[in-house]
């Protein structure tokens, strides 16, 4: 770019504005508005926020009452669950734990997890009929015992089936785990805690029932 172009541009711009001066401007200082800044309006008035907060709390309470989600008592009970037990079945070490015992409507729902503690290369493990009653491939042999000695057995759904996990196709490779569940019909007066009896395993004592 030649220096001449720059000079021509400079002088043309000066010439264009040369005629404009204080005397040629017709405008005066702007008429300022009375308010400086357009204040942002809050999204909702305070009473609406308060109402929303009350609604949220009510929703939480209703959710707990209806069983949609657990209350703090349920969380406390979860912390009181017995420790997992390790049992050897045919040279395979398996860890069984009670992960949940809760009242769901008219049923008491028990959840167990089983984990094959073997190392890679060890054979798979299957619960098979170990937890079933009379060689059934399910958890029909599991039962609960209340402090008064009453026994709760799995809820039957037919003559030889219970409302529980079928174990016929469960094979756990080394380090694999699965969840097993079984349901019991809740008595009219639900005890606060029960002993969980699983065949071929030691007792899980005083397991609290979350409501």
């Amino acid at each position, binding site marked *: *770019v*030649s220096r001449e*172009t*720059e000079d*021509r*541009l*400079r*002088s*043309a*711009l*000066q*010439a*264009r*504005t*040369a*005629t*404009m*001066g*204080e005397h*040629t*401007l*017709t*405008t005066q*200082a*702007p008429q*300022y*508005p*009375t*308010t*400086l*800044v*357009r204040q*942002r309006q809050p999204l909702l008035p305070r009473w609406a926020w308060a109402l929303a907060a009350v609604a949220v709390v009510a929703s939480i309470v209703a959710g707990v009452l209806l069983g949609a989600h657990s209350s703090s008592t349920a969380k406390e009970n979860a912390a009181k669950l017995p420790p997992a037990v390790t049992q050897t079945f045919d040279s395979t070490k398996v860890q069984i734990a009670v992960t949940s015992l809760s009242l769901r409507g008219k049923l008491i729902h028990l959840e167990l997890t089983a984990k094959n503690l073997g190392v890679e290369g060890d054979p798979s493990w299957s619960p098979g009929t170990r937890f079933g009653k009379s060689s059934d491939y399910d958890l029909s042999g599991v039962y609960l015992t209340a402090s008064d000695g009453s026994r709760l057995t799995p809820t039957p759904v037919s003559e030889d089936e219970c409302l529980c996990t079928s174990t016929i196709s469960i094979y756990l490779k080394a380090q694999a785990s699965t969840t097993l569940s079984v349901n019991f019909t809740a008595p009219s007066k639900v005890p606060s805690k029960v002993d969980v009896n699983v065949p071929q395993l030691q007792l899980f004592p005083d397991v609290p029932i979350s409501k």
Partner: protein
Amino acid sequence: MTRLRRRVTGGYARPTPPPDPPTAQRVVSNLFAQHRVGLTRLALLLVDDEATAQDVVQEAFLGLYRHWQQLSDPASALDYLRSAVLNISRSVLRRRRTARAYVPRHESPARSAESLAMMRAEHREVLVALQAIGERQREVLVLRYWAGLSEAQIANATGLSAGAVKSTASRGLVALERRLQAAGGGSVAPAQLEPR
């Protein structure tokens, strides 16, 4: 205005001090008295129409006043005003282009006979060429060769990086020179000088 708004600080959660209209009005009025001619000249070079240029400057000052409380640094109010003038001018040109697409061409406010007579043919030629180059290039050239701003100041006003300012100015000058060469140094008819 968009850039001006972007530059101002403040937010929903941040408590702002109570407005002080008399102080802001006094300061902004002083700035108006001090810089309105310069800023109007800047706007004139961008929008090429005196009345519109004055409107642009009015709007810039009004915007500054409205957002005075939110200015992060009141000392740099002139920078804000310069940016505002650029942005508002850009909006004006955009509106003109849109209007032209829908409305039949009409007699636009041309320069006064006096100003045309006072301008030499070679200046007219340069100004026509300047109006024909890119918007951003024109802004940078005006700020550099008319306002005499440094690259950093131009970058501040336009929102470009310093490197982009340099390259835009360079390309703008090349484009301007090409157009001048294409025009062949002949004089330009006043009709060609209508505002964009």
